[in-house]
C-alpha cells in the first residue's frame, strides 16, 4: 500500500497523541490520549493511576490516627483542608465535639490554605498558557509567605499534619497572629497586582473567554464541585450549605459566574480569595482562648463506635469528603476519600472536544487538579 492510499482516510486526517504522563503541563503524571484533527481535539481519554498508591488500603491497615499524616499527601498543595476533612468525618463518626478555639484555628488555617491554593492556581494557569513564569513566581512569593506561617505553626511547610480528632495538634506560637495579619492584609494588594498583570491582557482574555463553557445542569450532573461548579452559575458552597465548623458565624459572600467558561473559573478564584481574606480577618479578630483540643477525645488507641459517616468540607478544589465505616476496632473498616480533583475531571472530555490542543491545557488548568488526590 502506498502512502497515497491513506490520504483522505480517517487515519490520515487524525493524529493520536499521548499527552503525558511526562508532559510539562499536565500537573503531574496525568495522561490524556488525545486524537487531533489538525489542532482540534476530536477525542480525549484521560488515563489515571500513575501516582496510585492505594491510600485507602494503607489507611485501613493503620490506626485511625495514623491515617492523618497520609491525608497531607492527597492534595499536597493544600494539606490542611485534607486534615480538616478527615478530622471532621471522624468527629461525625464518633460524635466528638470540637474545642471552640480549635474551630477558629481550623477556619484560620483552612482559609489561609484556600488563599495559597488560589494564588498557586493563578500562577499555574498562566504557566499552562505559556507565560514565562512571572505570574507563577509572584504567586509563589505570596504562597511562600503562607507556607512560612504554616511552618512556624505546625513545623512543616506542606506536610502539616495539623488536625486532631476534636481539635488541633498545637497552639499558636507567640507572634503568629501578627504575622498572619500582615500576610492577610497584604494579600488583596497581591491580587490587585495579579489582576493588573493578567485580567486586562487581551491575549489572556482571548484565550480564556468563551473556551469550554459548562452549563449549570451539566455541571451538577457531572459532579463538579467547588469553584468549577460555582463558575457555572450554581450557588453551592458547602461552607454555606452545611455550615460545618463555625462558618455560619462569619459574614462572607459566595460568588458565582454566568457562562462557566475558563475565564469564569479563573476569575472565581480571584473573587473567592478576596472573600477568604474577609473571613480570615473576622476569624482572627474573634479567636477565643481555651484548650485547642477536646480533652475527652482520645487520639492514641482511638476506637469510634461502630457505624458509618460521610463528612465533607469545601476544600479549595471542591467538595472533599471522607466516607468512614467503623466496626468498633482501632482501625477503619472502610476509608474512602471523595477526591474533588478526580471527580471534577469527569467532564474533561466533554469540555475539551472541539477545542484546540492549546486549550486542553488551560481547561485542565482551570479545573485545578492535583495528582496526589486524583490517583490517591
Amino acid at each position, binding site marked *: 500500500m502506498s502512502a497515497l492510499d491513506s490520504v483522505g482516510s480517517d487515519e490520515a486526517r487524525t493524529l493520536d497523541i499521548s499527552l503525558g504522563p511526562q508532559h510539562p503541563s499536565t500537573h503531574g503524571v496525568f495522561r490524556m490520549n488525545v486524537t487531533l484533527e489538525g489542532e482540534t481535539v476530536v477525542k480525549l481519554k484521560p488515563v489515571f493511576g500513575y501516582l496510585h498508591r492505594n491510600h485507602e488500603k494503607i489507611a485501613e491497615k493503620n490506626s485511625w490516627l495514623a491515617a492523618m499524616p497520609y491525608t497531607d499527601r492527597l492534595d499536597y498543595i493544600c494539606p490542611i483542608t485534607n486534615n480538616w476533612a478527615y478530622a471532621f468525618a471522624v468527629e461525625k463518626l464518633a460524635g466528638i465535639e470540637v474545642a471552640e478555639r480549635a474551630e477558629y484555628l481550623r477556619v484560620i488555617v483552612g482559609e489561609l490554605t484556600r488563599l495559597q491554593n488560589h494564588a498557586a492556581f493563578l500562577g499555574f494557569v498562566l504557566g499552562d498558557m505559556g507565560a514565562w513564569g512571572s505570574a507563577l513566581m509572584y504567586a509563589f512569593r505570596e504562597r511562600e509567605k503562607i507556607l512560612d506561617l504554616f*511552618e*512556624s505553626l505546625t513545623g512543616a511547610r506542606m506536610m502539616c499534619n495539623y488536625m486532631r480528632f476534636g481539635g488541633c495538634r498545637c497552639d499558636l506560637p507567640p507572634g503568629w497572629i501578627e504575622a498572619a495579619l500582615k500576610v492577610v492584609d497584604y494579600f488583596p494588594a497581591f491580587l490587585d497586582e495579579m489582576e493588573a498583570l493578567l485580567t486586562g491582557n487581551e491575549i489572556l482574555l482571548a484565550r480564556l473567554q468563551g473556551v469550554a463553557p459548562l452549563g449549570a445542569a451539566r455541571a451538577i450532573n457531572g459532579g463538579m464541585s467547588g469553584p468549577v461548579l460555582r463558575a457555572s452559575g450554581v450557588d453551592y458552597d458547602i461552607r454555606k450549605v452545611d455550615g460545618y465548623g463555625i462558618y455560619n458565624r462569619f459574614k462572607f459572600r459566595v460568588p458565582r459566574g454566568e457562562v462557566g467558561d475558563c475565564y469564569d473559573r479563573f476569575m472565581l478564584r480571584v473573587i473567592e480569595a478576596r472573600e477568604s481574606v474577609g473571613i480570615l480577618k473576622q476569624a482572627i479578630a474573634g479567636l477565643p482562648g481555651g484548650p485547642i483540643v477536646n480533652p475527652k477525645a482520645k487520639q492514641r488507641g482511638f476506637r469510634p463506635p461502630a457505624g458509618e459517616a460521610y463528612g465533607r468540607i469545601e476544600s479549595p478544589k471542591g467538595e472533599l469528603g471522607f466516607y468512614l465505616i467503623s466496626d468498633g476496632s482501632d482501625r477503619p473498616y472502610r476509608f474512602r476519600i471523595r477526591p474533588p480533583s478526580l471527580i471534577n475531571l469527569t467532564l474533561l472530555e466533554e469540555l475539551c472536544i472541539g477545542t484546540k490542543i492549546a486549550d486542553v491545557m488551560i481547561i485542565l488548568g482551570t479545573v485545578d487538579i492535583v495528582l496526589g488526590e486524583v490517583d490517591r
Partner: protein
Amino acid sequence: MNIPGSGIFKGLVVTARNFVGSYFEKDRLTTEQYPEERPTLPENARSFPFLVYDGTDPETGMRCVSCKICEKECPPQCIFIVQDRDAAGKAIKRPKVFNIDIAVCMSCQICVEVCPFESIRMDNAYELSAYDRFSSLLLDKSKLLKSNTYYRSIHPTEAAETDGRIEADRLKKEAAAAAKAAAAQKAAAEKAAKAVEAAPELQKPEASA
C-alpha cells in the same frame, strides 16, 4: 471605546515595576542564597525524630524504655526496636536496637506525641543527603541519640516544658517516695512503739539495767 492593547501595556508596566523594584527593594527577593545564607528555622520546624538522653552518657541517660509504642503507632512503620536483655535473659527497660529508616519516615511527629517517656523528639536538621540509598539513611541508636542540651538548643520552649514536666514528675515521685518513706518510718515507729507497749516487761530489765 477602549484602546486595544492597553491591557498588554498595563501588564508590561507591572513587570517593569517588578524588574526595577527587585534591584531596590530587598524584600521582593524571596530567594535564599542557600549555602551562604541559611534559613532561620521556626522553633516548631521538624525533620526527623531523634532520641533524647539526659546527662552526658547516651547509654545510661537514655530515656527510652523500649516500650515500643512508637513502633506500633508509626504510620509508615519505619521504627524498629529490639529490647535489651541482661545476661540472664531478663528484659531490661532499654532498647538494644533502635532503628529509624528516614528514607521511609514521613516526619509526621506521631511517635513524639505518643511517647509517654518524653524520649523521642523531632530534630530540625535538614542536610541529610547521602550517597548511599540504604545504609546511610537507616539511623541506628548511635546516630539517633542526642543530648537533652541539644534538644534544648533546637526547641527551647518545648524542651523547657518537657523538662518542667519531668522535674515535676520527679518531684512528685520524690515527694511520694518521701511520703512513703515517712509513712513507712512512721509505721515503723508506731510498730516499734506498739512493740514497746506490747512488751513492757522485756524492756524493764534493760531500763533497770
